[in-house]
């Protein structure tokens, strides 16, 4: 049943040109990060790591959460129009399956975006000539994967918001506010307790130090906890609320 729901979600997405948004935001943040690295090479002398600090800063801290919010609003947009939620919920498909299908679709899109961002990062490094002087940091793959796992936590909560709120823009606005709350919590050392700060930790945006085994365990547990909570809230809303 989940596969059928995924197929239905795909049909809704395929001519939507959402890929334009998915491509533009990472390209934009990589370009600005690369330009900043290029102009400050005298200070940024740690090769690939320095480049990562520049390209991932705006992407992981600002663009990725907002991209997630836009994607989540987008996958709920058609359902909000003309009270289509009633049509969907009247179909012989369980409510959790409908919600999980949306989580999976946005998750897959975001995985593709993460891979695209990795390609952009590698290209930027090659253009800057880093491959000649520095070895490629293997941690990057971990940052990309952990970034994606943390993205799933944000996806679960954003989907909950997007199913609750009819407006396309409001969940995106909330996401912008949450970015700053997350940054505040990260600075206060409470990063593991908020999905957006988990993204900062997972992607190594502000600190490239490797996570200890304990921190990795906490990271994984918090990701699972947040995804479960977000999904539970979303499914509960779809099941109980009058749509």
């Amino acid at each position, binding site marked *: 049943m989940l596969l059928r729901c995924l197929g239905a979600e795909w049909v809704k997405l395929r001519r*939507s*040109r*959402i890929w*334009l*948004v998915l491509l*533009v*935001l990472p390209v*934009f*943040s990589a370009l*600005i990060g690369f330009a*900043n690295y290029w102009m400050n090479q005298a200070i940024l002398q740690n090769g690939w790591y320095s480049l990562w600090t520049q390209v991932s800063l*705006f992407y992981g801290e*600002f*663009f990725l959460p*907002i991209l997630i919010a*836009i994607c989540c*609003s*987008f996958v709920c*947009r058609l359902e*909000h*129009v003309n009270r289509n939620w009633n049509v969907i919920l009247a179909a012989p498909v369980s409510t959790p399956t409908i919600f999980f299908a949306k989580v999976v679709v946005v998750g897959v899109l975001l995985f593709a975006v993460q891979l695209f961002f990795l390609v952009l990062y590698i290209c930027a490094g090659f253009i800057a000539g880093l491959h000649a002087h520095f070895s490629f940091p293997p941690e990057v793959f971990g940052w990309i994967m952990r970034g994606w796992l943390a993205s799933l936590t944000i996806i679960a909560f954003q989907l909950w918001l997007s199913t609750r709120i*009819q*407006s*396309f*823009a*409001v969940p*995106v*606005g909330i996401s*912008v*506010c949450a970015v*700053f*709350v997350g940054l*505040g919590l990260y600075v206060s050392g409470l990063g593991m307790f908020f999905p957006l700060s988990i993204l900062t930790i997972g992607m190594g945006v502000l600190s490239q130090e490797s996570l200890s085994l304990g921190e990795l365990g906490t990271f994984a547990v918090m990701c699972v906890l947040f995804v479960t909570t977000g999904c539970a809230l979303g499914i509960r809303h779809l099941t109980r609320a009058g749509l």
Partner: protein
Amino acid sequence: MRTLWLELYKIRHKRLFLMLTILLSIELAWGFMAVSTSMAKNPDATTWSAILVTITAMNGLFLPTGSAVIVSRICDMEHKGRTWKLLLAASVSRKAVYAAKFVSAAVLIGGAVILQGLVIVAFGIGYGLAEPVPIGLLLRFVAGTTLTNLVVIALQQWISLAIKNQAFSLCLGMIGGFIGMTASLFPPQVGRLFIWSYYVDFSPVTYQYVNETMLFTTREIGVHLPIIVVLMGISFYLVGSIHVSRQDV
């Protein structure tokens, strides 16, 4: 005028001003925390200029984002409700609706900017700044921010009404916020190509680092920049209005 009242009537339950206030509250809380920390470390920087510079830089991020969200909500209700046909059948001109939407967004966001100015004054007085309230600087700050906002609204409204999928207008708003935030990193000739960098360009106060210390100086904006921005605004508005009026509903 009737269209404007109807527009305000349509958005009366949408809590747009509340949303804008929450967004700007987060901005101000963040900005005031940064200013307080900086002032505590460097008592020489305990000035109104420090507050204005910080808030102007943060406005570059928050106001394009807030404008994108507000304008998108005002415009999306016509797409979602499929009301264009209804409006045309009621002999309402699309240019009048376009103007009414522009004015209502401008009033909302302009009101929020004025409120922001008042909160800055309250913070400065509450913090116990020794200097008197710089009314001239504050008025120039509000005027510059509002003028830039009007152009941003015109651009956002064009995209929000022309393209039904609001993901694109919000994406533009986010890119605008990003450019606004990083405006000071661009060379001036490049920065002035983007309307979002004018939040910083219109700041009545600027700063430079001398021996790792921030020195604030007031500056005159002149008439050229505002004229360029007004022309940009008129262009975006007219192109948007004509484009949307000619679109098939």
